[in-house]
């Protein structure tokens, strides 16, 4: 992926670039808002990583300018402001995701993956399919190997999110945010329980496991190990 990182903390940026490069991404870096806007307008990027507070021009205004210009490159907002409303403000400005500092590197990577994928698949599908697991979006029926599976509403939402991001790592926080709309860290592994419940329904009676736990990082729904 070709990424643009707009971040004024040079040391943090250096580590981030190092990590992202190690994962095979190409990263451009801008240290202030004006440079960032210029690069974002002229370059062709898969995802923008934009710090909210920047010298010369703040991050949200960069995104607003881009959106006004018709540039829909997905943007992940990084911020040290973590109040509920700050997040809403960030998303309203046209940001596609919002990550509060300090964040885990894995969390950042997982979200970047999701953003690029979301950007690419613009055609609305009528059904989601992972191997022989099918979620029909019009009838809301779930089946595996032709066999109907009954799911609770929350389980279904959880499955839909995982299926929409198949083959990607999805973190616990991402699930909490998108499936339950909770933006806080529970002290317990409440998400894991929900996952294992879902797993017992979609994987248990079938040969090949689809829902994988990636230790220390999150989950992935995929027909590959």
């Amino acid at each position: 992926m070709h990424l643009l990182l707009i971040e004024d903390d040079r040391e943090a940026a250096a580590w981030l670039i190092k990590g992202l490069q190690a994962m095979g991404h190409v990263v451009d870096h801008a240290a202030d808002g004006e440079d960032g806007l210029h690069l974002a307008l002229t370059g062709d990027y898969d995802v923008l990583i934009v710090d909210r507070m920047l010298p010369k021009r703040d991050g949200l205004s960069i995104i607003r300018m881009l959106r006004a210009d018709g540039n829909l490159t997905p943007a992940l907002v990084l911020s040290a402001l973590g109040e509920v409303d700050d997040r809403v403000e960030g998303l309203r400005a046209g940001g596609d995701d919002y990550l509060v500092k300090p964040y885990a590197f894995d969390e950042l990577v997982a979200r970047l993956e999701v953003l690029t994928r979301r950007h690419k698949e613009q055609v609305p599908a009528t059904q989601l399919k992972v191997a022989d697991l099918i979620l029909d979006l019009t009838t809301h029926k779930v089946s595996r190997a032709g066999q109907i599976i009954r799911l609770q509403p929350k389980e279904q939402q959880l499955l839909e999110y995982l299926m929409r991001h198949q083959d990607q790592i999805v973190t616990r926080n991402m699930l909490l945010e998108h499936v339950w709309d909770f933006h806080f860290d529970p002290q317990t592994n409440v998400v894991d329980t929900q996952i294992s419940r879902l797993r017992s329904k979609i994987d248990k009676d079938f040969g090949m496991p689809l829902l994988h736990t990636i230790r220390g990082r999150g989950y992935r729904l995929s027909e590959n190990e």
Partner: protein
Amino acid sequence: MNRLLRTSAIRLSLRYAVLYMLVAGTGLAVLYWATSRYVDAQIQAGLEHHVDSLKALYETEGSVGLMRALEGRGLADEPENHRFVLYMDKSGGRLTGDLKSWPPEAQPDEQVRNIWIEDNLIPLAMEDHDGYWPSIATSFPDGSRLLVAQSVRQAEDLQEFILGTLFATLGMIISLTLVLGWRMGRQLLARIDQVNTTAGKILNGHLDKRIPLSGSNDEFDELAQNLNTMLDHINRLIHGMRQVTDNVAHDLRRPLTRLRNRLDVTLLEPRDPDTYRESLEATRNDIEEVLKTFNALLEIAQAESGHFRGEMEMLSLSALASQLGEMYADLFEEQGQQLEVAIEPDICIRGNRQLLAQSISNLLENAHKYAGAKAHMKLSLRHDQAMVLLSVSDNGPGIPKDRQQDVLQRYVRLDTARSTHGNGLGLSLVSAIAKLHQAHLALEDNEPGLIVSLRFTPMKCTSEQ
């Protein structure tokens, strides 16, 4: 004194004094003018009437009768009228009367005219003085002439009296306005002085000083009240800041020290890669904990200070509690505990969804952590008289009665909590969020176990919820 003159009150009172003076002056001038006119008309009518009666006397009793009547009247026997007469024969000889001679201006035309009466025409005994006197002169068929003149002294006396009264009234109005204005100004100053004195004390570091109220509920009280509320708010913010600083120092120093010790020891001598990895991973986990504590402290301070920028909206507490209950029930069951969820539908309140979710989640997680392995817990939401009651109860060891209030205090933790996993700030955050939602948080004995309850003011659910 100088200050008093500079106050707006005294300036206002001076301005009013001038204004009142103008208004009253105009009114009194009109009054004076009208009174004078009235007096003049009265005099004129009196004169005409007098002359008419004398003429009638002449017609019935002739010249002699008139003379007798005039003489019998005596020298100005009606001094209250100050009316003077002069009766003369056709050749200009003085027949009778008070005046000594006929004034040259007087023409016998039976009209009231102001005629100049010299001092030497007036008998000394009358103690009157010269001036233009309203007079009527008339002539009779035998050629005799009669003059009736009214002294202006009475009118002048009256005018003087009226003028005197008018000026006294005007003076009283002005002095009253000034005195009242002065007093008002001083009172105003006294009230403002109180504000200033208090502000001075606060500037000098006595942050707990407040402006005294007079109890009259006037604008000054309102101002003082508003300033006091503002000061309270600022004080709370400062207090919150101090608390955060203190607690950040206290709560973060320990884990940070531990972290540092581990790194120091790891770096003491060369180690194999696995040891480094282990140490780094442990460090990362520690940092995770430090960050959680740090965030919790910030959130508590934010909620505590009442400074919350987030959205407060109408939301269904029933839906939120059900969602969380469902979410946690599975987790608890998995670990051998039981969570009973009893939620009345359609209970709505005004609040922030994220904060409320966090509160409920904290209460559930607390119960989960402290109630023991086989604990039975209950999440309940129901109407309770005019309020709605959200409670999380368990049958675990509970909290000793004498410590129940303690745990609600900011950052007070029981020793048992310190040794358990987690930062132990859960209930403090719940307490702060409850305050922000004007909810009442209570801890009760479940015999055995603990009931933590939140009492909210219910709202009417709108269709959206």
